[in-house]
């Protein structure tokens, strides 16, 4: 049994370890049981924080969400679960993308959370609701933005939407971050430059290169204005 021990050592060692095991199970026998009895404990049942129930878009008390309709989540989604319907509106003489409908198909979602991690504004998140069963498949397609909601008033306003090319969309998403976390601006700024430079190297298409550069400068402006104030 125990090759490194002699006969009696092995015997007593075995007895001792069995006693330890028996003690452990006996302690377990009297501990509070962890079984959740679901339909009965519906009221007090709380899923753990990292549980991915379904995708939601949190709205504040003024019925405002944070989504700028950039569409990154839609692009990240491996299953085409998300469909962001947006429209162009003109604000202060500048064209701007605005969210019309944020469609989320729970039926095809695989809860990988790529959309949430990709979202630059933390506009979407997973909640802990798990009672997702419905009788009709069409009910699984949910519209996440509440009716009449609008985007939260943040300096995202002055953003001319570039041509809907895949790459450029990523840089504007990157840009607004410094505003949210003011002290970090110094660190963030070089990073954005680097990203822009990277896209330049990778994609030598003229429009693709032009767009991010334009973006960065545009977004920087409100920043400086704010600082001046």
């Amino acid at each position, binding site marked *: *049994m125990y090759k490194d021990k002699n*006969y009696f050592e092995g*015997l007593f060692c075995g007895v001792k370890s*069995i006693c330890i*095991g*028996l003690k*452990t*199970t*006996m302690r*377990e*026998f009297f*501990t509070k*049981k*962890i*079984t959740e*009895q679901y339909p009965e404990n519906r009221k007090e049942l709380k899923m753990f924080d990292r549980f991915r129930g379904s995708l939601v878009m949190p709205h504040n008390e003024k019925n405002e969400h944070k989504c700028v309709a950039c569409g990154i989540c839609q692009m990240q989604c491996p299953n085409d679960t998300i469909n962001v319907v947006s429209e162009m509106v003109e604000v202060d003489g500048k064209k701007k993308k605005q969210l019309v409908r944020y469609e989320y198909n729970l039926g095809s979602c695989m809860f990988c959370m790529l959309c949430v991690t990709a979202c630059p504004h933390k506009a979407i998140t997973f909640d802990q609701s798990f009672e997702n069963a419905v009788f009709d498949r069409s009910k699984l397609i949910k519209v996440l933005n509440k009716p009449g909601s609008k985007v939260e008033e943040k300096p995202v306003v002055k953003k001319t939407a570039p041509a809907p090319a895949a790459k450029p969309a990523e840089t504007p998403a990157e840009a607004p971050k410094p505003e949210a976390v003011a002290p970090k601006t110094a660190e963030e700024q070089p990073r954005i430059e680097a990203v822009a430079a990277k896209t330049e190297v990778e994609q030598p298409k003229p429009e693709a290169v032009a767009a991010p550069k334009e973006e960065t400068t545009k977004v920087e402006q409100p920043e400086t204005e704010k600082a001046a104030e």
Partner: protein
Amino acid sequence: MFDFSVISQWLHTLLLSFLPEWATILVESVIVALVIITLYAVFAIVLIYMERKICGFFQCRLGPNRVGKWGLLQVFADVFKMLQKEIIKMRQTDRFLHDLAPFFVVTASMVTFACLPWNKGGHMIDFNIGIFFILAVSSVSVVGILLAGWGSNSKYPIIGAMRSGAQIISYELSIGLTMLTVICLTGTMQISEIVQQQSELGWNIFRGHLPMVIAFIIYLIAGNAECNRGPFDLPEAESELTAGYHTEYSGMHFGYFYLAEYLNLFISAGIATTVFLGGWAPLHISGLDGFNGVMDAVPGIVWFLGKTFFVVFLLMWERWTLPRLRIDNILTLEWKYLMPISMLNLVLMALLVAYGLYF
């Protein structure tokens, strides 16, 4: 203490008053058989429920709790499901042996079951070589298991059956030696005598102190191995052999193996109770007459069942604590550890008895 033989005597004379003797014995045999089968089924249900609950509690969960209050009807549901299932007839099996095997297993365990002393005077089979008879009859289940493995004509069952054969035959030695230790102390093999003696002189585990405690522990380990349970469930190791020797069985044929497994657990606990913990004998502490009087008021069957279920609990505790052993470890444990220890124990017991160093 209530003597159950009053009832059996009364029944006997009642039947004799209007039946010839051969018919009386026939009727009595049928009644006893019915009682055995009923008790067998009832205890199987109780034990399966108990096992599932206790297993759950050891694993920090609640066990069955949906069917009926506290899941009490769960086992009934399982049994009815089992009864409804088809007994699948497979090609290329030895049909006769395949169908015969469960009956060997279940018959062996039923006959052993009938040997247990339920109460004072409440024995079904009782004669002067009782323990020897139990050992002999309980070994018949090995034949059933080997037949099941052989008759299935399939790989997993034959491996399971071979393991079971090696294991049960090995552990039979330890059981035999511990029983010899007990007989050395009691001087009789008749079960009613052994229990009667314990009710007068104290439980064997107290009378024979050290060697009896060692024998009791060895019996618990070997008894668990005899039932193919606990860390010794290699013959049906589900992760390697799907279900071992009963892989190819379905419906009630599988049900018989299942019943026999649980009843064997009860039987080995019952025998441990009978020979070590005094069977139906109440707990007496010499000098405390009031306490002894209270203990005497509790009926013998309650004592017997209480002690037996306590031992069943010990066996389940052991089972749900230890992981499954490898086959060579099992044989090492028996041949290198348990058997030498129980031999030495027997010598020790013989010395104690020879010098009168017991209570």
